[in-house]
């Protein structure tokens, strides 16, 4: 693996690692890691450092939905311009162009069911190039971003083994 891949593989799982420790683990100078990180931020290879939150465990209500959207691509710009119109809404979490039975997969976060429904009917469906939508509410998250949401198991190994 080249250095960039090693750094990315590591920080994709733990972006809060101490730079010094990361350098030690990769067997390079701290400056090397710092420079690579900076360059990759510059090149927008690293697009952000986010926190994975299990909102279920808080008192804050959130509703998440996956919306399948069929659209008419626009001349010259394909799906990009409609995608842009959709992703600019702050309540939209992610927009993916999808192969298969529909075109865009939109993930949405709202405070209530009603809020999500309203967004779909008032904003999304009314876009000129949107042909149809299908809204799927997320009932429970088991795993997200490669991380199992349930609390990890304790170390069940014996304290000492030879």
């Amino acid at each position, binding site marked *: *693996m080249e250095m960039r891949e*090693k750094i990315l*593989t*590591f920080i994709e799982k733990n972006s809060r*690692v101490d730079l010094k*420790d990361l350098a*030690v*683990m*990769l*067997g390079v100078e701290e400056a090397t890691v710092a420079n690579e990180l900076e360059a990759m931020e510059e090149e927008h290879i690293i697009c952000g450092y986010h926190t994975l939150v299990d909102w279920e465990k808080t008192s804050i209500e959130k509703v998440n939905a996956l919306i399948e959207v069929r659209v008419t691509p626009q001349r010259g710009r394909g799906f990009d311009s409609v995608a842009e119109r959709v992703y600019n809404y702050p309540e939209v979490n992610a927009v993916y162009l999808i192969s298969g039975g529909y075109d865009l997969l939109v993930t949405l976060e709202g405070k209530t069911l009603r809020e999500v429904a309203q967004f779909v009917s008032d904003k999304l469906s009314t876009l000129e190039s949107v042909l149809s939508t299908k809204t799927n509410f997320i009932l429970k998250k088991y795993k997200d971003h490669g991380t199992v949401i349930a609390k990890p198991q304790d*170390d069940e*190994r*014996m*304290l*000492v*083994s*030879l």
Partner: protein
Amino acid sequence: MRNPLSERIVDIPFSGIRKFFDIAAEMQDVISLGVGEPDFDTPWHIRDEGIYSLEKGRTAYTSNAGLKELKMEIAKYLERRFEVSYDYDTEMMITVGGSEAIDLAMRAMLDPGDEVLIPQPSYVSYVPCAALANGTPVIINLQEENEFRLTAEELRNAITSKTKLLVLPFPNNPTGAIMERKDLEAIAEVIIEHDLFVLSDEIYGELTYLDHHVTIASLPGMRERTVLINGFSKAYAMTGWRLGYACAPKVILEQMLKIHQYAIMCAPTTSQYAAVEAVRNGDADVAQMLEEYNGRRRYLIHRFREMGLSCFEPFGAFYAFPCIKEFGMSSDEFATRMLQEEKVVVVPGTAFGDCGEGFLRISYAYSLEKLKEALDRMEGFITKIRQSK
């Protein structure tokens, strides 16, 4: 009532860490660096194959030597990874962990009076297994200045007219030492010259950080005098599945198989089906775990340097073997005090032979967070002792 016990068995001591384990088990908030197994779970696709085999009702014995399918895959794997070829049908058997294979090899090869050379520090089972097989264990004390590798000179000095077998435990538990090709070539010459056999325990063979592991069986003239032992426990994080294997020339293997047939029957069937998946599709998992261990290894050694703790750089397994002679305590004393005062478990080097005195075995089969916490505590302990001197 008569004494129900065999004197020979009673004479074999229990392994030295029991006391330690008992103290630690009673304490709260203990962090352990004392574990000799991976912290990863067995990769899911491997577990899944085990489950699937149960669902299919594959719950009968396999043939004594093990599933043909598994042996064929292992033969391919050994060629691919270690450049040795074995006939899966006559030169290979599946065992209950590498441990069983060690026992079988000793029993198949030793007669009363035969001397077995056992380099130490090393895994605890070689000496008792040699004794159980009526052999005479002869210890070779490995030296820190050689990074705990076995040198041709040390080997030569230990050989007598009765020497028959050399145990070669590399990559090594507890030191993390490896034997590179040049080291193996040097001892191979002595082995051939004195017509010895080798029990090569390569259970950590996938876990090396300098270069790819070389098996002594791949050197010219060595295959016919080597019993190669490996298994799934360390490479694929499968300790609880209890699955290993032995490869040896037919004359030796068939005698090992005879003992296995009467004593064990066959290795666990579920584990064998899971292992087929491991050896067939597990290379990427091994590479990923290796990368992870390597990062922790570097971190650990770095911290030892920062603490001013002397430790040669280990290039194998997942252990480091720092020297604590500067503190004027025995390994046992140091480990006991560190457990009582800082609640960190490490294993005294003496658990692996008398020449482990003055050393500790530190395992890095732990997450970085755990490692960090334990090393912080260890650093505090060391600072305290240095100040009180």
